[in-house]
């Protein structure tokens, strides 16, 4: 079963080129063309605000873009020069921690509620609670991680930041993984069992690879959100002017850097905030593209 779309039309006729037999058919075809143009038009329409945002970020951010960004530490207010290598370091680490927590939790739970016991009370509870928490404001994730990790360890830390982001992204990963697994046709599973595979083998070798692109979509959405959120990280990992040495001390991050610098009344720092935004967007997009290249078309 292919996951690509095969646009099959009645034999011999390309879609959209049906000849009108009568006025009613003409109307249907007209309607058809209308919807097609609308669809294409709207898709191109979204390019406008996007280009506006990207243009703004480029315009303001390119000026300070240089290799120094990756190798130097943030400048103090009133001073110029420097970079934000430590913030890039921190964001990568905290998003990695967040994914390390929420991906197994989310994907494996999705497997349970989809493959093993879909009708059980536990499965229904998982779905209910996950949907309930799609709406938590990001600041609450920060407050939660603050009380659970920061207060018990006595310090702000990258781990606390990772936990906050994990909590933020868990509902997304769980729900999209469930949808991804549901999208795998039943026949595929039946064919697998028919060949003598165990349930585990079926899930691991047949269902998961098939659902993987959709699961990666969810994970990439989570990565994008996690890298860009300020509030959860602000309360848990605070910020650091220095390079990261371990996971249990305050850690810099791109989102907090952008927040800190963009709210200062000093031009150089504001410019640096734009450059950081540019770098953040580039990082997330690169991760997204890389994941699609690696995970989308796995030929079995």
């Amino acid at each position, binding site marked *: 079963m292919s996951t690509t779309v095969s646009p099959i039309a009645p034999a011999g006729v390309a879609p959209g080129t049906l000849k009108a037999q009568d006025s009613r058919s003409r109307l249907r075809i007209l309607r058809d063309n209308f919807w097609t143009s609308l669809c294409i038009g709207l898709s191109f329409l979204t390019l406008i605000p996007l280009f506006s945002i990207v243009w703004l970020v480029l315009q303001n951010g390119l000026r300070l873009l240089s290799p120094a960004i990756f190798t130097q530490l943030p*400048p*103090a*207010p*009133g*001073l110029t020069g420097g970079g934000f290598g*430590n913030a890039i*370091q921190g964001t*990568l*680490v905290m*998003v*990695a921690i967040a*994914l*390390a927590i929420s*991906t197994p939790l989310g994907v494996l739970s999705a497997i349970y509620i989809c493959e093993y016991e879909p009708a059980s009370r536990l499965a229904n509870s998982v779905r209910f609670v996950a949907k309930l928490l799609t709406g938590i404001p990001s600041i609450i994730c920060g407050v939660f991680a603050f009380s659970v990790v*920061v*207060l018990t360890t*006595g*310090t*702000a830390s990258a781990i606390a930041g990772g936990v906050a982001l994990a909590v933020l992204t868990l509902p997304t990963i769980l729900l999209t993984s469930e949808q991804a697994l549901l999208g795998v046709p039943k026949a595929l599973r039946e064919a697998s069992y028919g060949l003598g595979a165990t349930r585990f083998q079926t899930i691991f070798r047949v269902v998961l690879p098939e659902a993987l692109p959709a699961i990666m979509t969810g994970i990439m959405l989570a990565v994008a959100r996690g890298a860009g959120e300020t509030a959860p990280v*602000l*309360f848990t990992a*605070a*910020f*650091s*002017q*220095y*390079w*990261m*040495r*371990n996971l249990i*001390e*305050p850690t810099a991050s791109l989102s*907090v850097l952008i927040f*800190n610098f*963009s*709210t*200062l*009344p*000093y*031009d150089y720092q504001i410019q640096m905030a734009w450059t950081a935004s540019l770098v953040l967007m580039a990082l997330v997009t690169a*991760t997204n593209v*890389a*994941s699609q290249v*690696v995970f989308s078309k796995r030929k079995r």
Partner: protein
Amino acid sequence: MKISLLLGSAATLLAAGTAFAAGIQLQGAGATFPAPMYQRWIAEYTKSNPNVQINYQAVGSGAGIKQFTQNLVAFGASDAAMTDNEIAAVKQGVVLIPATAGSVVLAYNLPGVTDLKLSREAYSGIFLGKTKKWSDPAIAKTNPGVKLPDTAITVCSRSDGSGTTFVFTKHLSTISPEFKDKVGEGTSVTWPTGVAGKGNDGVTALVKQSPGAIGYVEYGYAKNNKLAFASLENKSGQFVTATTASGAETLATTKFPPDILRAWPSDPEVKDAYPIATFTWLLLDKKYENKDQGEAVRKFVEFGLNDGQKFAEELGYIPLPKEIVEKGLEALKTIQ
């Protein structure tokens, strides 16, 4: 997979980071207003003291006090000092040190009007929502010859809790009993009218974009964004513009109680004093468990009080008057 790649690069970066084995690390958190000043101090201080690493993150005075009380940070910072209740909650005892100061200006957006003079009646009326238009006689009275449009006044305030709001509302409550009654003072009040922006930068953006707007911001923001701001009438009847000098005059009138360096110059009667200026405080433990940490904090704050004041003008703050620096240094000595 992706994760191992990320972790691997993270590990490499970690290893590449400076090995900082036996140095001292200080963490501070608190008010947003003095954050640039403290961060500049940190940068300059650690230049000559490379074995100390200090981090200060602006999270807000309230959160700063909380984290300081919970002993999560070595020092806190607050625009509103600490109340007696809050001080009592800190087991190790608190030493309040006024570290720097700034003034709150009323920035406005009236194309063509460069020198606006607002009387006490006018500006308290504006923020109470009573004076609704720029052409109001209360404003016109003190600005003869200036062409004031008949547009509505858009009051821009702070949506987030802030020391700036605290200082401004304290001042307004002092000069206007009606304001004290209707709105009151605090880090977060419900303004009777207008829009609110997040942070000083938020209010700055609001004022910049809305013709007919007026808002209260820290002096540094108005200066850097080239916003016009009003000269205010002080208690002695003079119209004073906010400058480093007029702010310093105000600060010099502060009378601190003997045992704690906490006081607000709310309405100075001195001639050239700009009416809205205030200190911001550093919160230090009276007794540090970690002696090295305590010593490091003491030295750092000492640096700030002495050498740190010279960055004030550049960054938009008011340098502390000498007497207050002396008092601060004395208080520092009481830290163990």
